[in-house]
């Protein structure tokens, strides 16, 4: 009795050996890397889209109940006090926090530089937090502030958030287009690889035909080879994606604007989406391979 019969308990003796995949061949060594990089970029696009969505949602939820009152720097202190008093007495506002001059200067530093004169009329900024259960009409508050002085203005961040949302929407459309283009690239790459594999294995195909193999059987073997290669490729793509996420986590966790976005590293929904897309890409590659093989096989006369 041969050692193979003793050693192998697996029922299917062809289970781990796709007929059209010679592990030593150049195709078997490079195709996983090519598909891996393509799949990685597609997953990165998906990740980018979800990140942008989370970014806008986070900013919206943070700023929806945070408004800023701006008082012209030339106004007298009693006007400032009047504004503060009015805000503190208004229902629906949970906290009124005037920023000190140093904090305001620090905010202006990126635009005006660090060498600002202390005499420069810096506007006074008041950060107000709203009660979520007691909605406040921004127009009414704005009118009441203007009544104290026309140079007192209310910023609800609506304009800024609107601009950011529109920008992110365009970004997502661009990402979808890029993602579709990359998926097309993946399908074309798989088609090309299958055609190359087909040309390389003409003798094997002829031999299989002579042993009574159907076109369907041969196409399924090409499918199996592609499955083998793309599963390897997807693993490479996922490892690259995880590396990016871990890097973002380490670099982004100290950035206040990003901190909420990089933790946790593997949010449930994103992880499910990435796994689902990976599966779909493998399925698409396998389908493309089968169709290509069937088209080529149909051209063989005998």
């Amino acid at each position, binding site marked *: *009795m*041969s*050692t*193979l*019969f003793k*050693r192998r308990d697996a*029922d*299917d*003796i*062809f289970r781990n*050996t796709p*007929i059209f*995949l*010679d*592990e*030593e061949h150049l195709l078997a060594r490079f195709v996983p890397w090519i598909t891996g990089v393509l799949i990685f970029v597609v997953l990165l696009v998906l990740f980018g889209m979800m990140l942008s969505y989370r970014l806008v949602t986070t900013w919206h939820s943070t700023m929806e109940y945070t408004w800023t009152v701006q008082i012209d720097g030339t106004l007298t202190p009693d006007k400032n006090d009047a504004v503060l008093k009015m805000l503190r007495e208004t229902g629906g506002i949970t906290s009124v926090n005037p920023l000190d001059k140093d904090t305001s200067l620090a905010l202006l530093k990126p635009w005006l530089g660090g060498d600002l004169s202390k005499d420069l009329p810096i506007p006074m900024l008041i950060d107000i937090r709203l009660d979520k259960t007691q909605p406040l009409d921004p127009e009414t508050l704005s009118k009441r502030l203007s009544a104290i002085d026309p140079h007192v203005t209310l910023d609800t961040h609506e304009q800024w958030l609107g601009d950011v949302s529109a920008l992110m929407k365009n970004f997502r459309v661009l990402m979808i287009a890029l993602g579709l283009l990359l998926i097309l690239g993946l399908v074309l790459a798989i088609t090309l690889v299958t055609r190359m594999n087909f040309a390389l294995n003409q*003798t*094997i195909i*002829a*031999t*299989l*035909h*002579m*042993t*009574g*193999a*159907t076109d369907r*059987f041969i196409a399924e073997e090409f499918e199996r080879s592609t499955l083998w290669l793309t599963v390897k490729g997807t693993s490479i793509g996922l490892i690259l994606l995880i590396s990016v996420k871990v890097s973002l986590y380490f670099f982004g966790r100290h950035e206040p604007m990003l901190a909420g976005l990089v933790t946790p590293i593997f949010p449930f929904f994103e992880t499910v989406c990435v796994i689902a897309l990976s599966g779909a890409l493998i399925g698409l590659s396998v389908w493309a391979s089968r169709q290509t093989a069937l088209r080529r096989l149909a051209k063989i*006369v*005998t």
Partner: protein
Amino acid sequence: MRDNAPALEFRDVSMRYDEGRAVMHQVNFTLERGTFTYIRGRSGAGKSTLLKLAYHGLEPTAGHILVFGEDLRRLPRARLPQFRRNIGVVYQDFRLLGHLTALQNVAMPLHVAGVKSTQLRADVKELLDWVGLSDKASQLPVTLSGGEKQRLAIARAVITKPKLLLADEPTGNVDDKMAMKLMYLFEELHKMGTTILMVTHNDGLVERFPHPQLMLEDGYVHAV
């Protein structure tokens, strides 16, 4: 496939490769079921072409080829796999699949026919024993000698118990001792009822194992 039809019939078969010279001119012969026939002739006489025509690896330029009463010209492509499962072919160049083991190579015709692995394993083991290669089951063809490859190719050709066996110089790459062993294998298959058509150059074997011969000369076939 008709029950009482001859195993192989060539009716006015002519063959010409593209615009080249004609390899066969209106060849006619019939092989009855259960016969063992040699095909002989000089190199380039068209012996391998005749076998390729018989297993429908080539389409004749003219004429009809009938295998078990089935006209290959009229055989739809969808029925070819089923048709070919009744024919075993031993190629001159073995055509073993290089990255598959000896076991997998022999099992291939059963695998393509959808035979379950449990059943397949027993048949392959028995056949590898029969050709004396049971200890080489896990080896790749590249590690086998010429004679072992030839025996493996024969094992693959007969694993499905074909009704017709076409063998192209099956003893061409082995020494005389091995050639004798292989011939005993073919004789055994013949006794089991397999129709055998074998191309050979080996006069010694033909004398030792006498069977009817077809001589291919200048594109014509005649019985010897």
